[in-house]
């Protein structure tokens, strides 16, 4: 552009200023904007170079203005400004000229004159623009909600667990912990996998295998699990369970689990927590209900058992025991038999016990 200016500068000096001698231009309404400008320029006796030097535009831009070649010109805002300056130079009415049709009118109409938005490719970048920032916030909010929900659920479960723990702690100091099959493993090693659910659903132990004295032969004979022979195995029910888990794999594999389950009596171990000192074992020859309360009169065990069942309760301190059918129930404390007859009225035995044995 500076080249064109320097080349046109001498020309500009040869012509008198356009404002002084330009005649009032007769604008024909049907002419295009560029044609009007060109006509007025020719009437004023100016060359393209003159106009370019006066308006500080390049000659190519002046030609493009006169040919309405919008593609060769800057955005529409600037073109309108150039046209205004050009019209003022030629003393043309600016308003009429701005409303005149242009060859590129259709193109300029479809093309937005101006946008504040960055180009689409830039908009697609995640770091730019408020809209994407909003989306980011939305995503962050959703993630935060999900995390909050998960934490809430976990805390709820933790609270439930804590409640259980509190209950345990309430029971613990007074001596009784009631826990079914939690601290002691189920001797289900010998069972096929298919029977495992049954074993957990009906809490039974293969008491035959649990008798260390009888060992493998006893385990092989389903008959030893009959109610009559179950009693001698009772004193060490808990220790037995552990021993069974170790002994069973070697000693009892030949026994089909189904037959063992079908013929052996059910045995429920009310296992003690670690600190419990005393073990109370019940074995039943007939149906009987049993209720055990601790020193604060809280029921720590209450259940109806059937013939052949073996129950075990761990406790600490003093407890009171009520047995509904004392004649069909054998009771032993830490392995030593407890005579129920002195505490029995009709069929119900009521007695208080501590580590030393029955209390009057």
């Amino acid at each position, binding site marked *: 552009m500076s080249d064109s200016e320097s080349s046109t500068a001498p020309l500009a000096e040869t012509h008198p200023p356009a404002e002084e001698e330009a005649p009032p231009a007769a604008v024909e309404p049907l002419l295009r904007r560029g044609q009007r400008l060109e006509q007025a320029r020719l009437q004023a006796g100016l060359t393209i170079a003159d106009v370019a030097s006066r308006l500080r535009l390049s000659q190519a831009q002046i030609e493009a203005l006169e040919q309405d070649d919008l593609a060769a010109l800057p955005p529409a805002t600037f073109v309108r400004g*150039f046209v205004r300056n050009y019209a003022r130079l030629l003393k043309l009415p600016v308003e009429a000229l701005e409303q005149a049709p242009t060859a590129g009118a259709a193109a300029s109409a479809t093309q937005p004159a101006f946008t504040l938005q960055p180009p689409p490719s830039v908009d697609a970048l995640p770091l730019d623009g408020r809209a994407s920032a909003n989306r980011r916030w939305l995503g962050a909010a959703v993630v935060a909600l999900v995390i909050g929900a998960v934490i809430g659920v976990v805390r709820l479960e933790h609270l439930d667990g804590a409640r259980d723990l509190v209950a345990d702690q309430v029971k613990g100091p007074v001596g009784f912990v009631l826990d079914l099959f939690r601290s002691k493993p189920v001797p289900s090693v010998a069972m096929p996998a298919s029977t495992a659910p049954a074993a957990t659903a009906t809490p039974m132990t293969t008491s035959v295998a649990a008798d260390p004295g009888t060992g493998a032969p006893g385990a092989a004979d389903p008959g030893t699990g009959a109610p009559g022979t179950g009693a001698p195995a009772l004193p060490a029910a808990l220790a037995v369970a552990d021993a069974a888990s170790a002994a069973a794999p070697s000693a009892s594999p030949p026994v089909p689990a189904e037959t063992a389950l079908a013929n052996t009596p059910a045995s429920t171990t009310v296992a003690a927590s670690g600190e419990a000192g005393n073990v109370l074992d019940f074995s039943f020859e007939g149906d009987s209900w049993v209720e055990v309360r601790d020193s604060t009169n809280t029921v720590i065990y209450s259940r109806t058992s059937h013939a052949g069942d073996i129950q075990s309760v761990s406790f600490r301190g003093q407890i009171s025991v009520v047995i509904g059918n004392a004649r069909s129930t054998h009771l032993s404390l830490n392995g030593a038999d407890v005579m129920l007859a002195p505490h029995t009225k009709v069929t119900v035995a009521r007695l208080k016990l501590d580590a030393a044995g029955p209390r009057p």
Partner: protein
Amino acid sequence: MFGFLRGYFSNDLAIDLGTANTLIYVRGKGIVLDEPSVVAIRQDGGPSGKKSIQAVGLAAKQMLGRTPGNISAIRPMKDGVIADFTITEQMLKYFIKKIHDSRMLSPSPRIIICVPCGSTQVERRAIKESALGAGARQVFLIEEPMAAAIGAELPVAEPSGSMVVDVGGGTTEVGVISLGGIVYASSVRVGGDKFDEAVINYIRRNYGMLIGEATAEQIKKQIGSAFPGSEVREMEVKGRNLAEGIPRTFTISSNEILEALTDPLNSIVGAVKAALEQTPPELGADIAEKGMVLTGGGALLRDLDRLLMEETGLPVIVAEDPLTCVVRGSGRALEEMDRLGTVFSSD
């Protein structure tokens, strides 16, 4: 307490809090207010008496220089920034209430306000606090060159340099903008007020006559010119003769006013040249092709574009409706404020 409710019933505003005029754009409606930034204060009962607002805007401007002792007409903005914090707050409150007419709840709009790019942090904070004090819920600041460029419909978001020269009442802002950001901006505290002042001083010096600001502004608008033209215009002016102390009439020509305006105009030209010197060469090439755009009331000074064209050798165009460019640009930013984040300036 009912802030969110009041906000719901308030219209978001863009305000061009100018030294000379305050313009307000309402979202979805356009420019609804264009009033001079003048407040007339009445003081009752002596110097320690109660102050009350007598008039704001056009009515107050008519009082400028014509007030009795107990009324003072004040222009709370000076050089583009707040000169009197309390009065500015009251003026804003008045304008906001005026455009939220017949509302039960007091308005609590979100407001975009233009600030000169050369304003200090303290000055920006003052403008923000003032708008908050006038009841705004949230205030965003936008620098004047950016607002002017958006208002002049320059392609601000494109990777192409655009230069805007906003000649306002108190300041002249020169900005080079590309990709939605300001590459270079400078602000000189020269504007319409300085032109008026220059005219007053010239007449006092050369004619021994004292004229008021309103008269000086009238002379500037009627026969003021920035470049010597073929046509010489004259105007009859009334003022007080300093020697006689009696009002007299005299005639002044456009060439004399051009001479009077030389100093402030040179400051503007200097700022534009400094901006061009500081502009990176690629953007400078864009500006050489497209030219610079003049906005603001000062752009209406006759042949200011011609002066800049001659001084810089670049094309210069005057924006359409240059007086409202800044507020239109702020309004445009307001309309798209949820999608735009980058055009607003921080404190």
